[in-house]
């Protein structure tokens, strides 16, 4: 759902920007705030943008590529591995991953390997792998790699790590659009949407937008009360329990 006003602002910004490089990239989001209410089951945000080419520049042989990276608030993870001890399966070893985005979507026009080189992917933080560590997978011992693979797989199954090589579509040769799906379990906080433009494997321009995921109304008040007025919150929950229990015994008094 593109909002016309937002699109106009984006277009105005694009017209106002001077011809600094050969290509200009202007990107915008369908909204800057995802509100969590009692019926929240996830959200969709549309990212879109325009590539404007300077008239004096020679046209490029290859097509343009767009990579959109959405990063949720950073979080720390522990990945545990179960091992067989005698007859039982127990958690034995674990690895910590510090400062990993709690949500990560990498949407592109083509598979990342076709867009640019592995070295540039790592340097420009493109792709899920580039966010987990500075060390590439194939340089890690098998033992260590397994934890990273598990993190990627488990978060992927939960819809929080997404890599979609067909996630960005060109509507015209210069206008593109992508849908960002947030699962209901995605963290609250500030999300960064980085749009990067490539041609022939070379980065040409980038644009950054943000949106916020926040609880509103009742959900917001409950979360605030639980964290700020802890004792009062606990006592209120207990009072509700006692009230419910007492009401039920009144309802069932007959016998």
């Amino acid at each position, binding site marked *: 759902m593109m909002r016309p006003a937002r699109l106009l602002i984006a277009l105005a910004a694009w017209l106002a920007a001077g011809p600094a490089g050969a290509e200009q990239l202007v990107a915008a989001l369908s909204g800057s705030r995802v509100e969590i209410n009692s019926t929240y089951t996830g959200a969709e945000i549309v990212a879109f943008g325009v590539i404007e080419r300077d008239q004096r520049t020679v046209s490029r042989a290859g097509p343009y590529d767009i990579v959109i990276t959405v990063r949720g608030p950073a979080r720390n993870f522990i990945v545990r591995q179960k091992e067989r001890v005698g007859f039982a399966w127990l958690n034995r070893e674990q690895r910590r991953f510090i400062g990993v985005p709690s949500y990560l979507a990498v949407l592109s026009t083509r598979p990342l390997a076709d867009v640019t080189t592995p070295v540039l992917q790592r340097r420009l933080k493109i792709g899920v792998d580039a966010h987990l560590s500075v060390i590439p997978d194939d340089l890690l011992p098998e033992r260590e790699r397994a934890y990273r693979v598990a993190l990627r797989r488990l978060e992927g199954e939960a819809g929080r790590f997404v890599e979609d090589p067909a996630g960005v579509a060109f509507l015209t040769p210069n206008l593109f659009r992508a849908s960002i799906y947030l699962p209901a379990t995605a963290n609250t906080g500030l999300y960064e949407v980085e749009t990067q433009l490539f041609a022939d494997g070379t980065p040409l321009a980038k644009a950054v937008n943000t949106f916020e995921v926040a609880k509103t109304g009742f959900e917001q008040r*409950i979360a605030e009360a639980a964290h700020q007025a802890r004792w009062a*919150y606990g006592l209120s929950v207990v009072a509700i329990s006692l009230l419910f229990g007492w009401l039920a015994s009144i309802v069932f008094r007959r016998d």
Partner: protein
Amino acid sequence: MQIYLPIAEMPVDMFLIAAIGAAVGFLSGMFGVGGGFLMTPLLIFLGIPPAIAVATQAAQIAAASTTGTLAALRRDAVDMKLGLVLLGGGIVGTAIGVGLFNVLRRLGQLDIVIVVSYVTLFGVVGTLMLVESIRALTASRRGVQPLPPKPPWHRDLPWRMAFPRAGLEVSLIPLVGIAMLIGVAGSVLGIGGGFIMVPVLIYMFRVPVALVVGTSQFQILFTMLGATVLHAATNQTVDVVLAMLLTVGGVFGAQFGARAGRNLKGEAFRLLLALLILGVGLRFAFELTVTPRDRYTIAPVEVSG
């Protein structure tokens, strides 16, 4: 119908949650156990973070045992004095257990202690009860008079106290000792311990079944009220929306459970409780020994280092 849980930060089906509350509440009302040992695994299975599942079900158990205690009080089926003595022992045991929990976690041995204790505890308690209740059932069917019970081992211990309502005069040493052990187990294993308390009162202290349920619920009520407030104040892990959904189901379930329980004969009651405990024990044994579908698990952590 989906509803978003503000503390657990995820949506759940509200009817499913209320149904789980009702089912666990039914068993809880019937047997006078809290039901935490059933509720916690169910909530975790639905994807609720374990810390929130443990803390929130305490609020639900508090509500269900309020109803249970009130109903028992009306039938004069609570030994208040016995309940208070057990509560006192339980509080001391819980404090010791919290300390032990932290020591075990530092040593990195918490996992193995928890799983092995679960399987042993549920397996042993369940099997003993099953054998006894089957023997009692077959004896009563043949019309054979059951053998007169042997005098309990704790008969000659000092510091005796009389519990007129339960028709019991017993030394405080085994009574408070057991309550403390249950408190320790409860805080290390994250369970209320009603399922140990009920058989102990029946078998070790020969308290009448009708009185055991009410007294156990009385003790559970106060334990769970305290647990809810402490969890909320120290960990902020009580989700009030989840608690209310579970409670709505739970209080009704507990009412029907209490009625069903009153219509059961003593032997049948013990047999069913034995099967329930054994079933949960088997489930844990299964989880422990069967090759997991996924060897890796992931958990978010707040602090680094």
